[in-house]
C-alpha cells in the first residue's frame, strides 16, 4: 500500500454557516433539557408513590389515599397474606419457566433468520413474529382462550406458561437476531476452516459471542412475563399471578404488601439492569 497522499483541489472558500440565533440556542441549552427533566420527573412520580405508600400506616390492612404516618411494619410482614405470596410465587415460576423455554426455542430461530438469507419459511416466520409483537394483548389473550376452550383444555398454570412462551419467543428472537446479525461471520468461518464441526463451532465460537444478546433477551422476556396482565387474565382460569391479584384487590382496597412487593421487584429489576449494563460493556462487542 502506497502512502502517497493525493492532493485535493482546494475548494473555493465558503462563508461559514450562520450560527443559530440566540433563541434557538436557548432552546437547546435550557428549555429542552428542562423539559426532559420535567418529563422524567413525571415518569417517576408513580414509582415514588408506590415506594412511599409502602411505608404508609394502614390500620385496616388496606391502604387509603391519605398519608397516615410512617411505618416499616409492612416490610417485616411482606409475606403475611398467603394468597398474595402464592400469587407472587406463581409469577416468578412462570417468569423463569417461560424465559428458559423461550430462550431455548427463540435462539435457534434467531440464528436461522439471521444466518440464512433465503429459505421458504422465512417470510411467514418473519410475519408471524411481527404479528406476535404487534398484535394487541386483548386479541392474543382472547384467541388463546378460544383455542383452549375449543379443545377443552383446562385453564391454569400450564396454559399461562404456554401463552407467556408464545409471546416471549418473539421478543427473544428479535433481540438475539439483532445480536447475531451484528456478528462478524468470518469468525464462524475461521472456526470451520480450522476443522471444527458445526456443533463445536456453535458452542465454542457463536454461543459465547451472542451470549450478551441471550442475556438481554432473557431479561426482557423475564420482565415481560412477570408483568403480563391482559393475556394472563384470559388464560389463567383460577390461577392467580401477582398482577392478577393486585388487579382483583384494587376493587376492595390493596394491602400495603402489594406496594412493598412492587418496590422489591422494582429494586430487583434495577439491579439486574445495572448488572446487565456492566456485563454488556465488558463482553467483547464484535
Amino acid at each position, binding site marked *: 500500500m502506497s502512502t502517497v497522499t493525493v492532493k485535493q483541489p482546494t475548494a473555493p472558500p465558503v462563508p461559514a454557516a450562520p450560527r443559530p440565533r440566540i433563541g434557538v440556542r436557548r432552546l437547546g441549552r435550557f428549555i429542552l433539557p428542562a423539559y426532559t427533566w420535567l418529563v422524567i420527573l413525571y415518569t417517576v412520580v408513580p414509582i415514588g408513590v408506590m415506594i412511599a405508600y409502602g411505608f404508609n400506616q394502614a390500620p385496616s390492612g388496606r391502604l387509603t389515599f391519605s398519608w397516615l404516618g410512617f411505618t416499616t411494619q409492612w416490610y417485616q410482614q411482606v409475606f403475611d397474606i398467603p394468597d398474595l405470596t402464592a400469587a407472587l410465587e406463581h409469577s416468578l415460576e412462570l417468569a423463569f419457566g417461560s424465559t428458559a423455554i423461550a430462550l431455548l426455542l427463540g435462539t435457534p430461530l434467531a440464528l436461522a433468520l439471521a444466518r440464512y438469507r433465503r429459505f421458504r419459511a422465512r417470510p411467514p416466520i418473519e410475519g408471524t413474529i411481527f404479528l406476535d409483537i404487534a398484535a394487541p394483548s386483548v386479541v*392474543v389473550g*382472547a384467541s388463546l382462550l378460544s383455542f383452549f376452550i375449543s379443545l377443552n383444555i383446562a385453564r391454569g398454570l400450564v396454559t399461562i406458561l404456554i401463552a407467556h412462551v408464545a409471546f416471549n419467543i418473539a421478543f427473544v428472537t428479535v433481540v438475539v437476531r439483532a445480536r447475531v446479525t451484528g456478528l462478524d461471520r468470518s469468525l464462524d*468461518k475461521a472456526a470451520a476452516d480450522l476443522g471444527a464441526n458445526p456443533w463445536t463451532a456453535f458452542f465454542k465460537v457463536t454461543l459465547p459471542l451472542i451470549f450478551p444478546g441471550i442475556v438481554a433477551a432473557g431479561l426482557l422476556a423475564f420482565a415481560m412475563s412477570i408483568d403480563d396482565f391482559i393475556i394472563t387474565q384470559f388464560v389463567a382460569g383460577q390461577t392467580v399471578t401477582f398482577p392478577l391479584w393486585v388487579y382483583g384487590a384494587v376493587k376492595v382496597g390493596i394491602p400495603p404488601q402489594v406496594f412493598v412487593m412492587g418496590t422489591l421487584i422494582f429494586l430487583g429489576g434495577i439491579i439486574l439492569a445495572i448488572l446487565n449494563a456492566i456485563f454488556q460493556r465488558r463482553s467483547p462487542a464484535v
Partner: protein
Amino acid sequence: MRLAVPSAAGRRGRGAPYALALPGGAWLLLFFLIPILAALSVSLQTGNPVNGFQLTWHFGEYSTAISMYGTQFVRSFEYGAISTGAAFLIAYPMAYWIAFHGGRHKSTYLFLILLPFFVSFVIRTLAWQFILSDQGFVLTTLEKAHLIPAGTHVLSTPFAVIAGLTYNALPFMVLPLYVAIEKIDRRVVRAATDLFARPATAFLRVVLPLSAPGIFAGFLLVFVTNVGDYVNASILGGPGTTMIGNIIQNSYLNDLNYPMASALSSILMAGLLIVIFLYARTFGAATLQEYASA
C-alpha cells in the same frame, strides 16, 4: 467483491434453517397463529353457555357486534389516537435532545425514562389512581390554589384514561424515536445548516423525515397496545369511558358469550391491521425499509 468461500449453508445442507426454526416456529404456529384463527371460527358459532356452542357459520354475530358496540370501537380508536399523538408530542423533543445533546449521560437519561418498566403495569396505573384521586395531593393542591373549581374530579373521566394510556406509552415511544434519531448522521444536519437552512427548516425537512422509521415503530407499539387496553379504563375510568377491550374481556370472562367476544376480537384485529397498513402506505413503508438498516 465477495470471497469465494463455500457458504456454511451450502455445506451443512439446506435443512439447517428449517431444523433451527422448527421448535420456535412450531410453538408460534400452534400457540399463536392457530389460536387466532380458532378465535375467528368461534365467532361463527351460535349457542349459549348452558347448551353449548356449535359452528354454524353464522356471520350475523359481526353485525350485532358492530351495532351494539360501535361506539366503544370508535372510542377505543379515538383514545388510542389521542394517547399516541400525545405520547409522540411529549416523547419527540425529549428523544431529540437526548440523542443530539445527551452527551455522556445518554444512557442515564434513557435508563430513567425506562424506569417505569420495572414497576408492574397494574401497580403503575394504581399509583395514578392514588395520585389523581379527589383527596389526593394533586387535586387538593390545585383546589387550594384556586386553579380549578372545588369538587372537580379527574378520575372517572376520559381525561384520566387517556392520561394513563399516554403515561404507559411513553417508554415505548421514546425508545424507538431515540434510536432512529440517534442514527441520523449529524453531518447531514450540518450540511443543511451549511446550506443556509434555518434551524426549524433543518429540523422539519431533515431530522424529522429521517427519523420516520422510529416514528413508525413507536406508533405501532403504542397505538396497537392502547386501542386494545382495558386496564386503564377499568381503574381510572368511569361511565362513558368503556373501551372495546373492556367489552371483550367482559364477554369472555363474565358473560361467557364466546361468539360475540370472538367477533369483537376479530373486528378489533382487522381494524388495527387496516390502520397500520394505511399508515405504512401513506408514509411509504417500502422506502422506510430501505432507510432502516435491518
